[in-house]
Every structure is written in C-alpha cells, then in structure tokens.
C-alpha cells in the first residue's frame, strides 16, 4: 500500500506543474495587464512611476523568476488581495469554501441515493418497462440543463402555489434547519443531474457482476435475493462507482457555480462570477487555483481509496 501511495503521489507532480502554469498564465494574460489596472485606480500615469510600480510588483524580472515568486507566494497561502474589497483572497476563500463543500456533499448524497437503487433495480429487471423508464430518465437528465431546472423550480411553484425556494443564506451552525432549507433544493437539482451517469454505470456494473461465477455459487447455496445483491454483487459492483465519483468532481463543481448563482449561495462559484464581473483578477485566479487543487485532491483520495477497496489495483 505504501508503494502504491508513493506512486500515486509522484504521478501527481507533473500534473500539478502544468496546473500551476495554467493558473499563472491566467494571471499574466489579463488584458491591459495588472499595472495598467492599478495605475488607473491610483491615478499614476507618468512613465517613471510605471517602471517603479513594475519593479515593486516584480514585473521587470524575467518571466521564470516571476513564476517561481508567484509559486512561492501561493505555497505560503498568499494569493494577493482582492482589488475590489481589498481583503486577502485567501481569507475570502476560507470563508466560502465550506459553503461550496456543503453544497457539493449534499448533491453527492442525493446523486448516490438516487442513482444506486435505481441502477440496481434497472439491472435486476433488465429489459422490463421499469428498466426502460429508468434508462430514459437518465438520458433525459443528461440533456436537461441545470440552469433551466433551477429556473423552473424558482418560477412555477411561485406561480402555482405561491411558494418559492428560500434564497437567503444562513450559516449552518447558526440555524441548521434554515441552512438546509436554502441548500436542499439546489443540492437536489445538482444531485439529479449528476445521478444520470452514475445510474448508467451502476446498471452496467451490476449486469456484469451478476454474470460472475461467485454469484452463481452464492445462488446455488441458497442465498436470498436481497442478501445476494447487497452483500455479494453490490460490494464488488460499486468499486468502479468510486472512480466515477472522482471523475465527476469537475462536473459537480461546474454545476455548483450555476446553482450558486441561481440560489444566491455565497460559495466559491459565486465568488468566481463576482470576480469576473468586477474584473477582480486576483480573486478569479485564486478561485481557479483552489478549484484545480481541490479536483486533484479529490482524484488522489479516490485513487487511494480505490487501492484500498480493490487489492488488485495496488499490485499492478
């Protein structure tokens, strides 16, 4: 297991290198670069001052040195200050990350608790009406845009029953019930759109596992259908689902941006959008970096848990 962990960690290094280059480029590619932006905000315009500002920011240094300086700062948790609020970007991120994390976790719970039972059902009743309904549902969910579902949920209950989802954020530890009232609707919508792929995968895996010899053996010794499915088939069939959850992490985060916008959840996604519209570049690139690192971490955790769940993976 130790070897496996080391191998996984070292595979991460080149990817992290390119990720850091992408984030660094996103800062450097800003139109009318940072100096122009700062100058226009501070009314400095003479050529000499420009050179001074550039020197102070380290922009007169070769690009390689600039990159390593930025990397060093980022590793120490210094992502610069927001141009709009003049607070540390790291500080804002620390306040908003748990909120997005809660949304993502709830959505994942919804996705799994919808996808796995329906996927199993679909596989056990292959080619019946129920199977077709479930498969059509997952195909439709792949096509329905999340922002449209969000819009419908906001508009139609309000028109028909004068009920609208709560869009006022309350911190969880202040009032868990109020917090969930707000988070549950977007989490369900996000979870439903995630469930489509997981459901298809669960169905395929279950169909494959049910054809294995050990399932026949279990049947032969007279095991009940429920125990057979839960203890023998599902345990093995679910291993690839863990990988799938990791692969879906980017989708989950992307979908969360839209849900945070519709339901006014003050998470990282909304922070990114606010940053873009306020041309607050340190915020944009800070969120960009954190999102990249989160996905890498999730994938690492998934890989490691995969090695733990399936001994064959460790030794290949």
């Amino acid at each position, binding site marked *: 297991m130790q070897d496996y962990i080391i191998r996984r960690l070292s595979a991460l290094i080149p990817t992290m290198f390119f990720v850091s280059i992408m984030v660094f480029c996103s800062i450097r590619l800003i139109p009318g670069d940072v100096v122009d932006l700062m100058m226009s905000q501070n009314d400095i315009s003479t050529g000499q001052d420009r050179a001074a500002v550039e020197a102070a920011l380290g922009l007169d240094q070769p690009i390689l040195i600039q990159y390593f300086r930025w990397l060093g700062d980022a590793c120490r948790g210094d992502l610069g200050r927001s141009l709009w609020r003049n607070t540390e970007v790291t500080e804002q991120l620390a306040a908003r990350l748990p909120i997005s994390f809660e949304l993502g976790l709830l959505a994942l719970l919804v996705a799994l608790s919808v996808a796995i039972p329906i996927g199993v059902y679909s596989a056990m009743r292959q080619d019946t009406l129920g199977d077709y309904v479930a498969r059509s549902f997952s195909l439709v969910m792949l096509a329905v845009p999340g922002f449209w579902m969000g819009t*419908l949920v906001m508009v139609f209950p309000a028109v028909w029953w004068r009920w609208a989802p709560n869009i006022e954020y309350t911190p969880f530890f202040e009032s868990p019930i109020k917090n969930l009232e707000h988070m549950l609707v977007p989490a369900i919508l996000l979870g439903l759109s995630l469930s489509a792929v997981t459901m298809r995968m669960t169905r395929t895996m279950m169909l494959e596992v049910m054809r294995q010899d050990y399932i026949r053996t279990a049947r032969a010794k007279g095991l009940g259908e429920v125990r057979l499915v839960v203890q023998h088939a599902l345990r093995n069939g679910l291993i690839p689902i863990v990988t799938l959850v990791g692969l879906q992490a980017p*989708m989950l985060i992307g979908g969360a941006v839209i849900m945070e916008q519709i339901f006014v959840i003050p998470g990282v996604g909304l922070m990114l959008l606010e940053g873009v519209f306020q041309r607050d570049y340190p915020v944009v690139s800070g969120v960009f970096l954190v999102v990249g690192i989160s996905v890498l971490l999730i994938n690492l955790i998934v890989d490691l848990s995969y090695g733990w769940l399936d001994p064959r993976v460790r030794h290949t």
Partner: protein
Amino acid sequence: MSTASSVTIPKLQSTRNPLVDLIVRIFRDKPLGAAGGTIFVAFLLCGIFANVLAPYGANDTNVLNRLAAPSLEYPMGTDYVGRDVLSRVLIGGQLSMIVGFAAAALATVVSVILGVLSGYFKGWVDLVIQRMVDAWMTFPGLVLLIVVISVTGPGLPQIVVILGLQYGIAGSRIVRGAVISVREHMYVHAARSIGAGTAHTLIRHVLPNIMPVVIVLFTTRVGAVILAEAGLSFLGLGVPPPQPTWGGMLAGSGRAYMYVGPWLALAPGLCLTVVVFSVNIFGDALRDLLDPRMRGLR
C-alpha cells in the same frame, strides 16, 4: 509486359454510397437514434431558415403587447418589452446551431491533431501532451471557460474558439486510444516497411481508419457544446445581447418577469433539452453502429 498492364482489377466496392448505407442502417437498426437524428435535422433546418421562419424581428419591441400570453398572433407569447418569443427562440436556435457545429468541428480537429501526435509518436511527445491534457482536464469545463472568458471578453468568435479548445483537448484521449490500436495493425507496418513516409502513413492509413471514432466524437460534441454555450449565456458570459440566445433568454433582466409570464421560462429550456437529447441519442446510435468499443463514452 503489355498483357500485364492491360489487366483490369475489378474494384471491390458497395454499389451504394457509404453515407446512404449508414443512414439506411440507422433507420433499420436504431429507430430511436433515427428519431433523434430526424428531430435534430428539423432543428437544424429551423436554424438555417430562422430568418425566413421568424414571424417578427428578434428585437422588434412592441410595448403595447408586452408580456402577452401565447396566442395565435404570438405562438409563444411576448417578453417584457413585447418581443416575440417564438422569433427569438428561432434566431437563438440559429446561434446555438452555429456555435454547436463550428465549435464541435474545431474540437474534432484539435482532438485529431493532439490525439494523432500523442498516439502515433509515443515517447516524450506523448508524455508531455498527456500531462498537459491531465492538467487541462483537472479544471471543470465551466470554470475554465469562465476564467478564459474573463480574459478574452465575451463574443461569438471567442466562444467558438474556447469551446473548441476545451472539448478538443478533452476528446484527444479518445483519438489517442484509437490511433494506438490502429498503428499496431499489419497494414500500417506493411506500409512503413515498403517505405511510406510518416505523413503518407498518417493520411492514407491511420486517419481513414480512425474515422468512425472521429465521426462519433464530433456528434457527441455538438450536444455538449450547445449545452455549454447556453450555460455561459445564462451566466451572462456568452454572446452578448441584443443577440438572443437560449441561455440568455432564461437569465438577466427577463427573469423577474417570469412570475408574470411563466411561458418565458419554458420555450428556450425545452428547445435546448430536446436538441441535446436528440443529438445525444443519435450519437449513441451512431456509436453502436460504427464503433461498439466506444460504449459508455460521454
């Protein structure tokens, strides 16, 4: 010598056009996929002839008829400044189709170039390209798009290029896989051993044999790209107004009026869902027919 050169070799060819053949097969073996394809073609035609079909101009305002419910005069009602929703949906659909085809085509080209380079040359070229693809794919599509657009600014050409790159890089893995399996085939080794150059081998032997994968890739990308463009427009980062877009019609200043005119919330989202759904099931059918190994790809 003269007798040898006069021998004519009969060509082994189907009498029918391969494209006609494929269409016949889809309709015969995959009715659901055929239905999807037909619906998609209908939307495509609506997009091509949108300017003729639209009963009103997309931005013709008529304040006297603002927020009119669907009627014979306005089949999908009007919005908060009295613009005809049907006309806007048609013109918006045209844009979706343009973005869908242009970006999916660009994406396919990018995928093929990267995939062929990576899969055919192997070695350090493959290693570097694959680690870059890894890094690129670490970022959620939408987040990457938002960040890039914050740099380039919104607009049709930017959207097409960015979506093309985004999906092109992600799809290069699939092309790479196909190239790796093709390059080990006997005919490729044979071609190389009789002295075919790299370019010749790639164009004459590798590319034609990965075509099924490329066609399927293109089809699945059309739906994905249309959905992504709508998402960006919804966030206000797509093609800027006054150009109507399906995503944009569900967002922005129109949102507040949906409570008075709920029909505003229906048409664009429904069109989007139907188009993406139909192109998805068409793509699935195409994949099953052309390349069964690609099952489960999305």
